[in-house]
């Protein structure tokens, strides 16, 4: 009974830790400590007076240094940040349009970026399973913890499904028309939504079948 596929990706720290990079000192710290530190950094960044720009720059440098020490490839860090930039700009725009007087959008963008960088660092040095266990110990509401665990479990399944559908679509795409590409993408996304919803029902059934109340 040895048909186990060995996980040959050396970047993965251990099973159950998809996206976590192995080998750095941050990875060896207890999850509870890292989670607390991340919370302190995020709250501290938010509360930092807007004219303490030097502090923000120092914090940014410290976070980048932590990323280097944790052996997280710079490119991946930038890519993750780029994925989240729309949220940063959204928050900055909301600050600019604040009816109580426009805030400096650059400070808001910088603070949001630092907070996101902290979260990215945490997620790439700590398996989510450990974070979830810490949250359970801290008596965070069970529904929230279960939702997080299920999201973590099925995000990859859905990503795989999206990949399968994208490949299936590509294999039968014979035109380069942009309009067609957008409509095909919309079809894939709508199918993915329906599949996710149907899967959610089956997962709920599987939970009920094993006594979920």
């Amino acid at each position, binding site marked *: *009974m040895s*048909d*186990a*596929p060995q*996980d040959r990706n050396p970047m993965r720290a*251990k*099973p*159950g*830790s*998809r996206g976590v990079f192995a080998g750095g000192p941050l990875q060896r710290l207890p999850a509870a400590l890292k989670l607390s530190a991340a919370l302190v950094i995020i709250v501290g960044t938010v509360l930092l007076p807007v004219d303490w720009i030097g502090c923000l720059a120092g914090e940014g440098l410290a976070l980048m240094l932590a990323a280097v020490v944790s052996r997280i490839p710079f490119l991946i860090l930038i890519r993750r940040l780029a994925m989240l930039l729309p949220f940063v700009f959204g928050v900055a725009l909301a600050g600019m349009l604040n009816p109580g007087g426009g805030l400096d959008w650059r400070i808001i963008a910088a603070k949001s970026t630092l907070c996101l960088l902290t979260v990215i660092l945490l997620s790439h040095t700590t398996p*989510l*399973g450990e974070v*979830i266990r810490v949250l359970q110990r801290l008596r965070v509401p069970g529904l929230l913890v279960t939702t997080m*665990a*299920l999201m*973590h*479990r*099925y995000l*990859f*399944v859905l990503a795989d499904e999206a990949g399968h559908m994208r490949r299936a679509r590509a294999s039968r795409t014979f035109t380069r028309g942009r309009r067609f590409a957008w409509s095909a993408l919309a079809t894939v996304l709508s199918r993915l939504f329906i599949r996710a919803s149907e*899967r959610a029902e*089956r*997962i709920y*059934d*599987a*939970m*009920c*079948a*094993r*006594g*979920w*109340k």
Partner: protein
Amino acid sequence: MNPAVEVTSLGYCYPDGTEALCGVSFSLMPGACVGLLGPNGSGKSTLLRHLNGLLPEKPPADGNVRIHGEAITAENLPSIRRRVGLLFQNPDDQLFCPTVEEDVAFGPRQLGLSEAAVAARVQTVLVQVGLAGQDRRATHHLSQGEKRRACLAGVLACEASILALDEPTSDLDPRGRREFKALLRQIDATKVIATHDLELVVELCARSIVLDHGRVVADGATLELLGNEELMLAHGLERPHILQHVHPHHPHEAH
């Protein structure tokens, strides 16, 4: 002795109007192993979901399904689900926890066992299904065969006396199928196996039930049913090749 499973005139219509089951009746004695056969869409999965009380959405007052003589009602649903373990067709639907250990422990924790008892039970069933030492592995990193065994471990951890297995070997390679069959043979429980794997049915099930369009069209000895080519072809099945090598009175010597 009460039958382990007793189904009487069971019918079910999905909300979109599809009639999935119509007048299904059969009973199984404790320890029986029965193959549930039929073409796609014949109602096999729907029937299995009724055994575990997942369907109908609200258990009826008259109770068409009885487990050990007890009709399924809203009140006894938790106890029914503990006794009837359901193995889903797609392991990714069933393995919803991040690690093997947490997934197998899900059922026992729902039963309110202490953490020490849960851990002991998890280790016991992981050894039983051949996944000893794999408890910390992520469920999404398991091979298909391991996923199947982890699903089975999760069901066995609830100490179910009846197993309802929905296409348990459908996506396994020949070695995975062979190992899973050997595993099922060792498990001492009443088993209902919905499958298209006719070799598995010949090897494990003395009795088979053929469903088509939600109705029971045949119920009898596996070798007799599967040997009836006309019946098989009429209901989207076929006479398995393995029957050519099976002695009618010694089916378990088939290989």
